[in-house]
């Protein structure tokens, strides 16, 4: 944080462009809450923000252990930013375990606030420290601020007649207050939040209020505290904003699509990290007519979603990689019966159970090819938390407009990460047009099979110009028809085993998906429209790649960037764009999956930058790769 010092009532205040801080402590210490509050307040202040929560796979690993450490990182700035930040300017640790697991991310000379009350022999041993790091000089490279948070906090809340245990629960607010002071954040928003949240628990309300203020005042009064920092408002497009995580955005995008398609939504899924929140969110939107089913497993989830789609609803299911395995057979059925369906995969570290709470992008090829036979689906991938809203909407649009299962590939990073979202004007949101036919679509003179005398017959696989079949729903008199997973004759939809028809249908299903490209935006090149290097990404890596490319270009390199939000089909102009560049770098959080598709389709000798660590890219990692390729 490059700083310019000013003076205020005798105390140093530094102007800085951007700051990255992380709250780290035991899962029980409420770090996620502290981080969220800090984020909200910063956003309200007008900073641009990006966050990265990081929690353990265990619900509550034993208190104080390394496995139990939970962290929440906030990047806030006066410029527009795309990532939660690589290195920390400031780290707050509530116990030794948190220090041990997080220190490596703190910049040299960075500010380290430690709760010095939690470094007893027992705490140290749980964190596997032989000697107390506060005493062995190992921290001399940082600006260490020891604060006896336990003691000060108990002191602050002692009159609130809480049990010692409950009293200690306020610790996080004390720490938060301290940090608020340090970065000049007003307390109002959080105080209000406390009032609403604990309205019924008056003691707790009072205690948390006091803890927060005590922390703030401690900063104000204690001399040992270093300078304050000021991060000015960012120049952000005017509008009303809120904070949104990827999973929240998905749920809202789906509901919005359902409303704007004037078609009810049925969501059926089975809980799995990190996708469960989508079910939780939607289960609480019943007044939008959303119906949710917590199915007995992933297969039942997608089965119900397809059954609902067959009935004329928007059928949606969500899961993570292991669940996609189980859904793959049913996806094949939806491809064969050409029903609209949205399948959301919030990717996590794999293979197998893998790293359930960590992020990864390694399910792309599974989405493309993970079914028997030639079984094409449409695939979209949001590039940021807020983009989940738009792409959820797009997924519903494509699925219903093309009668094709559509994958939405999110990941643990954007699912839990948050960013500001400019609240759209509902009136300006696009509509989705859905038609269920009510009359036979052929006039071959034959009397209708139901013998009720209409001329013509309903042909469930008679297609429009885009090769899309009609979405006729049960309950429509005269359109009775049967569908299923056996190969069908085109037009009539009857079971058919003829060789020529099968090949025709295989090609037709593929062409129909290819036709989706007619309805999606061209690939946008950011940076240089032609040049030495094109950096190609997809999904949640957008922020890191964008920042890296911006920095590289500031250094004068001639670099372009494209980010695929549509992965199948690719935008029409993709080949054209590639022609304008010599080299291609494809950073992915996998072993090179988009890379494989691009090399196979466009025969470009693209190189991959592949990180498979369950964590997002650091901007620096991409910068280095760019340097290597351009030097």
């Amino acid at each position, binding site marked *: 944080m490059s700083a310019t010092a000013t003076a205020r009532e005798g105390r140093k205040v530094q102007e800085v462009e951007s700051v990255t801080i992380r709250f780290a402590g035991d899962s029980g210490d409420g770090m996620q809450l502290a981080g969220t509050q800090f984020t909200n307040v910063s956003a309200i202040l007008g900073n641009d923000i990006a966050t990265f929560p990081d929690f353990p796979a265990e619900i509550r690993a034993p208190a104080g252990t390394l496995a139990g450490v939970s962290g929440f990182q906030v990047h806030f700035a006066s410029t527009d930013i795309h990532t939660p930040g690589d290195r920390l300017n400031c780290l707050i640790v509530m116990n030794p375990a948190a220090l041990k697991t997080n220190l490596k991310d703190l910049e040299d000379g960075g500010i380290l606030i430690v709760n010095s009350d939690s470094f007893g022999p027992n705490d140290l041993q749980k964190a596997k420290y032989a000697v107390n790091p506060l005493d062995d000089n190992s921290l001399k490279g940082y600006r260490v601020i020891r604060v006896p948070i336990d003691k000060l906090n108990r002191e602050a809340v002692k009159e609130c007649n809480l049990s010692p245990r409950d009293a200690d629960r306020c610790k996080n607010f004390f720490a938060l207050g301290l940090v608020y002071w340090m970065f000049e954040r007003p307390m109002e928003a959080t105080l209000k939040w406390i009032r609403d949240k604990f309205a019924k628990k008056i003691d707790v309300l009072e205690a948390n209020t006091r803890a927060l203020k005590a922390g703030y005042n401690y900063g104000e009064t204690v001399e040992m505290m270093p300078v304050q920092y000021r991060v000015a408002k960012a120049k952000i497009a005017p509008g009303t904003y809120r904070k949104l995580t990827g999973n929240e955005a998905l749920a809202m995008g789906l509901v919005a699509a359902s409303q704007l398609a004037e078609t009810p939504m049925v969501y059926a899924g089975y809980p799995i990290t990190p996708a469960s929140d989508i079910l939780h969110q939607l289960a609480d939107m019943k007044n939008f007519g959303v119906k949710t*089913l917590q199915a007995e*497993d992933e297969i039942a989830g997608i089965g119900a979603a397809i059954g609902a789609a067959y*009935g004329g609803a928007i059928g949606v299911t969500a899961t993570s990689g292991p669940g996609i395995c189980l859904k793959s057979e049913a996806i094949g059925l939806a491809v064969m019966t050409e029903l609209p369906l949205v399948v959301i995969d919030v990717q996590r570290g794999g293979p197998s159970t893998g790293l359930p709470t960590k992020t990864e992008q390694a399910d792309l090829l599974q989405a493309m090819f993970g079914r028997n036979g030639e079984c094409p689906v449409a695939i979209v991938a949001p590039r940021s938390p807020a983009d989940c809203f738009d792409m959820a909407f797009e997924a519903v649009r494509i699925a219903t407009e093309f009668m094709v299962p559509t994958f939405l590939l999110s990941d643990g990073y954007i699912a839990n990460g948050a960013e500001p979202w400019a609240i759209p004007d509902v009136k300006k949101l696009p509509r989705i047009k859905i038609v269920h036919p009510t009359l036979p679509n052929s006039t071959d003179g034959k009397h209708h099979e139901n013998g009720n005398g209409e001329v013509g017959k309903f042909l469930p696989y008679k297609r429009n110009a885009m090769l899309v079949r009609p979405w006729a729903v049960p309950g429509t*008199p005269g359109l009775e028809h*049967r569908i299923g997973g056996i190969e069908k004759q085109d037009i009539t939809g009857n079971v058919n085993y003829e060789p020529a028809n099968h090949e025709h249908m295989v090609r037709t299903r593929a062409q129909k998906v290819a036709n989706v490209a007619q309805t999606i935006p061209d690939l946008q090149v950011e940076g240089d429209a032609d040049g030495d290097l094109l950096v190609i990404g997809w999904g949640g890596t957008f922020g890191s790649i964008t920042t890296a490319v911006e920095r590289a270009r500031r250094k004068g390199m001639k670099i372009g960037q494209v980010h695929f939000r549509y992965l199948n089909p690719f935008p029409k102009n993709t080949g054209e764009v590639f022609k304008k560049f010599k080299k291609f770098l494809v950073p992915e959080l996998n072993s090179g999956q988009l890379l494989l598709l691009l090399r196979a389709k466009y025969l470009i000798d693209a190189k991959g930058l592949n990180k498979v660590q369950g964590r997002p890219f650091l901007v620096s990692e991409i910068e280095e790769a760019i340097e290597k390729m351009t030097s």
Partner: protein
Amino acid sequence: MAATALPTLKPQDFASDQEVRWCPGCGDYSILAQMKKALSTLNVPREKMVFVSGIGCSSRFPYYMNTYGFHTIHGRAPTFATGLRMARPDLQVWVVTGDGDGLSIGGNHLIHALRRNVDIKVLLFNNEIYGLTKGQYSPTSRLGTKSKSSPQGSIDSPVRPLSVALAAEATFVARTVDVDPNHLTATLQRAAAHKGSAFIEIYQNCKIFNDGVFDYVTDKSSKADNSLYLEHGKPMIFGKDRNKGIRLNGLTPETVVVGKDCGLDDVVVHDEKAENATMAYLLSRMMVPQFPEVFGVLRQVSHPTYEELQQRQIDEVTAKKGKGDLDKLFRNDDLWVVE
């Protein structure tokens, strides 16, 4: 969508234009015929009916009905039917499955659909064999069944479909047999009339791979003595001379000769409405030769359906929060304005 004129519906109106492709002599033909007869009596417009099936010979059923139909994937039919009912509670949804489709790969979905009391009518065609895959033993095949996959005889003791349905808290549980047209039709009508999950096991003869497994309850000679036809409120009487009955000795049923071993009032009177399903469970366990096997409705109780409860919650929430408003939804969190 105006309903098609009802009075005109005849059984043959339910025949689709697809030629039926079961083996000559397959029990499925009879079930298809009785189904058409039963539906023609329901006063439900044909377009409101949907047949959902899994995979198997039995699961080809929907293709032959001129209603809406969905031939899905192996073992999962109840899940599709559940989603369909959630989206469209106005439809009458029938699920056709087999002993392999419904109890081997699909056993779990069956149980969960039943416990939720989703309003679907599940017909399990039990031929104690995998027909479509050409003759492997199934979860209902008797111990020692020799088949392609069990050349020395099967060693997995079978499950009883009715016991499983009862353990899954099913609200309607019945059994019938392919070659008894009237009883079959009547049972289908009963299922159609039931609100909630209905489960019917249908003994069905596989002419090719398991011919005659049910002869003991279908042959003139042995039928009467081997089958007990249940009627609500009637004593459990059976036998050629209608003089045999079922008596309870504590929890153990025993076959008695009325007039000889005991009087008519010692014979158990069937109560399909009993909330306590113990007797139904007990009936589901009776097997030839020790006992007759039961046909008819073992249990029929009224509980709210999953769809009703779901709608109720939607109405409650809407009443409380008001009809969904996107703009409100978007703003249901801390907001800040940038000028």
